[in-house]
């Protein structure tokens, strides 16, 4: 196309460009106006935006730019001056603002950048904290596991349960593949596989205890990682194909009670450890974490304590069982002993009777036989029979007595008796035998020896007979002397009887009897044995003298029962021997009137109740008393005459009166004088009446005075019927009556 000659208007080509410019400016303005709006909108939406005024500035800058572009729209075409001015203003403002903004951004952008850095930093921190929290949670869970484990372990005192529980709980907590416990054997040289988690009954694997890996584990109290290939870890066949899991071993101290000092924690000076081996699952790539190792260590300690408790308990249970056993055995032994004693007593009781009956028959009939006509040989035979059977009877009695003494079932028959007459009887019994052997026997009783004593008369006599009999038996010639006296405190403490501490008191006295013989004597070494049962002295001379050897044993028992002591002394063989014994006897009470012991052999005669016809004379100046006494005597059947003064008495009294009762405490009348006079009145002995003094006094002086003047008896008023009765009987029997005042 050639250019035409026509003038081409510039406008259509420029108009297209202008159009495009026009449209672009429009869109720019639009954009510039909408950006701040968006900004405002989103900032308002967000909570935090530190630079608001920067935003304002930026907004202003953009708006102005937009305005500029907008105004530019009018400048494409011819525009008026105002538009130009506006345009200029807008541009100026825009320039100012944009410069300001540019300047501002220099400050702002580093800040914004640092914000970003901080944000990054915080994010990292948060991530780290998350990690740590995860760790803590794990640890807490581990701690919980430990507590639970410990609780499980300590909730039982049974050793097996403890160990089994430990393994089970550990396996569960740590998700182990295998957990095993190796205990040291008795010898201490090997470790034996005792418990495993998965296998029920571990076969008795043993490993020697001195392997280096084991020593390594034992030397530290921490859980130590060991190689899966070491012998203690090779417990089960490899389950996985590739890599066995990591293995950790820890020592478990086996504590004894002695390890627990009072102040310290148990010292681990113990040498005995068990080994706990824990295996992580194979092929799992799990590793032992620190907290898991700590868990294992804590558990190992707890197990140690729990085991020691279990051991203590076992020990005490065993001790208790032992005690129970012993108790049962002792009980049985006691019952057997009791049965034996009962059996023996029964036996003795039966045999006593059974043996004595034939013995009596033999003795009785032999005695009778002795009385008959016999040839000398026959007589000799009968005498021998009699002697032997007497010996046998004595032996039986002795054995029985001794067994009763041993039982403690023998009791003394305490009674009041005449001590002097006991001695005299013994003398009388022994004199014939002694005279046959041509031994002289002397009896010496001390002056202060009481006439009456309280004790077991029969057994005292038995003891004395035994002692004196021994003296006679073991003496071939010479003399035997018996001395009896009251032992005083000084002489009671005898060096030969160091344990004997007699205490004389008001109610008792100690009788000491010494029997000295000049016979064969005793070897001093034999003396201790003398009092033991059935032992005979070895010398042949004494052997033949017979005797069962029980006599002294029985004497000793009797003397002991009487709270006394007996011993023998000898200067040696053929130098004689002295036997001494001390016994405790009682002093008879004085105020006991119902006991009127006179001669013990004569039984108290209460029989005579009717004194009919007995003529008595009563002298009392008190009419009432006189009447009462008369009534009393008449009640007893007497023929009573009464007088009230001494003259009357002397006048009335005759030989027919058998008893005269005088009241001696009459003032003004001397009863004693009267008594003397009455006695003098009758010269002949058989005519003398018995004079009895009645008195209200209780003193000894009166009694002595009565005795002095020859009064036959003293009675204290008031008198009861029974008393009068017994008084009269005694009086008439013995012709003397002095009751204890």
């Amino acid at each position, binding site marked *: 196309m050639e250019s035409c000659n026509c003038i081409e208007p510039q406008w259509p080509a420029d108009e297209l460009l202008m159009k495009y410019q026009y449209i672009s400016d429009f869109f720019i303005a639009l954009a510039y106006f909408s950006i701040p709006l968006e900004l405002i909108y989103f900032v308002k939406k967000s909570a935090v935006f530190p630079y608001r005024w920067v935003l304002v500035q930026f907004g202003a800058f953009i708006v102005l730019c937009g305005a500029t572009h907008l105004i530019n729209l009018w400048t494409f075409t011819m525009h008026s001056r105002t538009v130009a001015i506006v345009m200029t203003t807008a541009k100026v403002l825009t320039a100012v603002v944009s410069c300001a903004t540019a300047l501002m951004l220099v400050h702002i952008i580093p800040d914004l950048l640092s914000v970003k850095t901080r944000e990054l930093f915080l994010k990292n921190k948060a991530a780290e904290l998350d990690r740590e929290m995860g760790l803590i949670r794990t640890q807490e869970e581990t701690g919980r596991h430990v507590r639970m484990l410990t609780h499980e372990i300590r909730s039982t005192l049974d050793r097996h349960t403890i160990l089994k529980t430990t393994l089970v709980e550990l396996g569960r907590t740590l998700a182990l593949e295998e957990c095993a416990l190796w205990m040291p054997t008795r010898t201490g040289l090997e470790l034996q596989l005792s418990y495993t988690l998965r296998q029920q009954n571990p076969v008795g694997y043993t490993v020697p205890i001195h392997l280096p890996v084991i020593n390594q584990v034992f030397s530290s109290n921490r859980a130590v990682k060991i190689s899966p290939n070491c012998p203690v870890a090779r417990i089960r066949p490899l389950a996985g194909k590739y890599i066995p899991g990591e293995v950790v071993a820890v020592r478990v101290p086996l504590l004894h009670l002695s390890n627990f000092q009072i102040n310290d924690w148990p010292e681990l000076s113990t040498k005995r450890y068990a080994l706990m081996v824990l295996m992580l699952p194979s092929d799992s790539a799990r590793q032992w974490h620190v907290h898991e190792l700590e868990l294992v260590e804590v558990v190992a300690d707890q197990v140690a304590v729990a085991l020691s408790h279990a051991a203590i308990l076992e020990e005490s249970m065993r001790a208790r069982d032992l005690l129970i056993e012993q108790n049962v055995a002792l009980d049985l032994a006691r019952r057997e002993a009791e049965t034996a004693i009962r059996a023996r007593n029964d036996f003795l009781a039966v045999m006593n009777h059974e043996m004595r009956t034939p013995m009596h028959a033999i003795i009785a009939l032999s005695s009778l036989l002795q009385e008959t006509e016999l040839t000398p040989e026959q007589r000799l035979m009968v005498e021998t029979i009699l002697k032997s059977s007497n010996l046998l009877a004595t032996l039986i009695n002795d054995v029985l007595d001794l067994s009763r003494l041993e039982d403690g079932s023998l009791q003394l028959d305490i009674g009041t008796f005449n001590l002097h007459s006991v001695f005299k009887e013994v003398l009388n019994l022994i004199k014939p035998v002694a005279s046959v052997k041509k031994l002289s026997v002397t009896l010496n009783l001390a002056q202060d020896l009481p006439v009456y004593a309280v004790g077991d008369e029969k057994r005292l006599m038995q003891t004395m007979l035994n002692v004196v009999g021994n003296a006679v038996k073991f003496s071939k010639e010479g003399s035997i002397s018996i001395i009896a006296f009251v032992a005083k405190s000084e002489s009671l403490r005898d060096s030969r009887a160091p344990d004997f501490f007699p205490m004389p008191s008001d109610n008792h006295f100690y009788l000491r009897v010494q029997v000295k013989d000049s016979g064969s004597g005793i070897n001093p070494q034999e003396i201790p044995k003398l009092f033991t049962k059935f032992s005979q002295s070895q010398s042949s001379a004494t052997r033949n003298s017979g005797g069962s050897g029980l006599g002294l044993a029985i004497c000793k028992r009797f003397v002991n029962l009487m709270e006394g002591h007996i011993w023998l002394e000898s200067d040696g063989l053929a130098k004689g021997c002295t036997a001494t014994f001390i016994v405790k006897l009682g002093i008879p009470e004085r105020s006991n009137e119902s006991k009127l012991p006179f001669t013990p052999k004569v039984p108290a005669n209460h029989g005579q109740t009717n004194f009919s016809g007995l003529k008595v004379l009563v002298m009392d*100046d*008190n*009419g*009432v*008393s006189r*009447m*009462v006494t008369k*009534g*009393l005597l*008449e*009640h007893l059947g007497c023929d009573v005459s009464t007088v009230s003064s001494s003259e009357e008495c002397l006048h009335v009294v005759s030989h027919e009166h058998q008893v005269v009762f005088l009241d001696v405490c009459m*003032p*003004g009348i001397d009863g004693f004088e009267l008594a003397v006079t009455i006695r003098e009145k009758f010269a002949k002995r058989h005519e003398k009446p018995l004079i009895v003094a009645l008195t*209200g006094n209780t003193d000894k002086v009166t009694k002595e005075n009565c005795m002095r003047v020859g009064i036959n008896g003293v009675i204290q*008023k*008031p008198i*009861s*019927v029974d008393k009068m009765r017994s008084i009269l009987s005694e009086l008439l029997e013995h012709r003397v009556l002095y009751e204890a005042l």
Partner: protein
Amino acid sequence: MEVGQMQRRLIEYTKSLFMEGILDDQFLQLQQLQDESNPDFVVEVVSLFFQDAEKLLNDITRALDQQSVDFPKVDAHVHQLKGSSASVGAQRVKNGCIAFRNFCEEQNVDGSLRCLQQIKQEYYHVKNKLEALFRLEQQIVAAGGSVPMMELSF
């Protein structure tokens, strides 16, 4: 009142006398001496005691009234009274006499007088009691019953 009741009353009465200490064992002894051969023994003894006592009390009173008291004589009387009362079992009278003798030994006139008063009181007391007792006994006998024996069971 019928016999059983009277007997019981008698026993109660006698018991009370013992409980109060007016009579003692000696009285029982007297009762024991009473039998068919001697049916009124107790009454006789007691009557004699009353006579004796009254006479003695009068004598003592007169003796104490004197200007200068003859204590040995008073003592002798008191001794007699003591003996009598002891023989019948009049316990309080006897005790009074024992106390009296102490005063006599001290030659204490005032004490003696006081003691005498007391003895007199006791004496009349026991006299009344015994007379009442005997009346009871007579009533029982009159009613045809028998006098029950006391037992020393208290």
